[in-house]
């Protein structure tokens, strides 16, 4: 990784932990230290970590609700217009704009759009896909998807100070601590 030719710049400080308990404690410390541009990386969701990081509740629900409403409205307008207004045909002696027969499709479209809302909403909130990310410069970080737990504090964070931050993280007894650097052209 370390290449003479390319200039390097530190981007993120990465602390590695082995147990869930350890990282939760660590996270609380970092939270209390008042950092903002930092994150926790775990192979699976850790309970209580949201609290430990002091994160607010997800806003996804509202997005889904909006999409769902769009779905149901779209369905009823579409069917009413197509069968009831634009070309009303007498089908089975029933009124062309009869509501009951529209219910199934109203439901299906609601679900469909809600599903889109939740998935793409989630990706949006998470700013995914983001195939390139500083933490990936770290060789050890691959364990984050296996059995290790990481705390990453970005250099951009205004409270970031190489030494102070190092101290803080060391005080949480990480199994390993590194300052990840990225090449700059």
């Amino acid at each position, binding site marked *: 990784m370390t290449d003479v030719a390319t200039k390097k710049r530190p981007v993120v400080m990465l602390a590695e932990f082995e147990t869930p308990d350890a990282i939760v404690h660590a996270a609380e410390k970092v939270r209390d230290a008042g950092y903002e541009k930092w994150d926790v990386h775990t192979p699976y969701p850790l309970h209580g970590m949201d609290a430990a990081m002091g994160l607010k509740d997800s806003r996804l629900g509202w997005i889904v609700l909006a999409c769902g409403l769009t779905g149901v409205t779209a369905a009823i307008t579409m069917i009413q217009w197509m069968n009831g207004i634009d070309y009303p045909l007498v089908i089975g002696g029933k009124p062309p704009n009869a509501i009951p027969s529209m219910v199934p499709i109203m439901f299906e479209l609601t679900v469909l759009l809600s599903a889109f809302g939740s998935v793409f909403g989630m990706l949006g909130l998470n700013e995914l896909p983001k195939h*390139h990310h500083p933490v990936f410069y770290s060789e050890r970080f691959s364990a984050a998807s296996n059995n290790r737990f990481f705390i990453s504090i970005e250099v951009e964070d205004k409270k970031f100070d190489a030494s102070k931050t190092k101290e803080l993280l060391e005080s949480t007894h990480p199994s390993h601590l590194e300052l990840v650097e990225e090449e700059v052209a």
Partner: protein
Amino acid sequence: MQIFPRSLNYLPLVAAVGVALLGGGVTFGIWYYFSPKNTQTGYAPEQPVPYSHKLHAGELGIDCRYCHANIERSQEAMIPPTQACMGCHAIVKKDSPKLAAIRGSWAGGTPVEWVRVHRVADYAYFDHSVHLAAGVGCVSCHGRVDQMDVVRQDQPLSMGWCLECHRDPTPNLRPKDQITNMTWTPTAEQAAQFAQATVKGPEHCSGCHR
């Protein structure tokens, strides 16, 4: 380790825009190019005889029904028999080279092979006479034939197009004696009177499909 270049982070944006553009493009393409408006109108094949409606109907002012004699009695517009041409051209321009085919047909009793211009699908049963009876003029569907040297399809003749008029014929209605008049425009009170007209085309399937 870092697998992808930073630039790849723009992927979502690029993808979103790309999909939007492509989707829009394809939709428009199909919408425009596949519609009868594009595929049907303007069809003006070359005819075996360079007959000019512009000359006959336009300048000479021959009434449509002189040649398309059946049109008020039959579903067929009836392409006129050679006989009809010879009616005049036995005397007028009897030696014109353009009329060779006509004379040949008359002499040999072989029909002139006109190329069909206006065509509705065979499962759609269009009837000229009833439309005339309702007071729909030739020009509504065939355009300004009196200005065409070569007959050209003027309207899409698609089902949607038919339905437009069947649902609201008013703009296309005119007095029975003006049926073949290519330039007729309603006076104010005429327009008002046709607005009240109860005549309306069928919208149910068997109205046209049997």
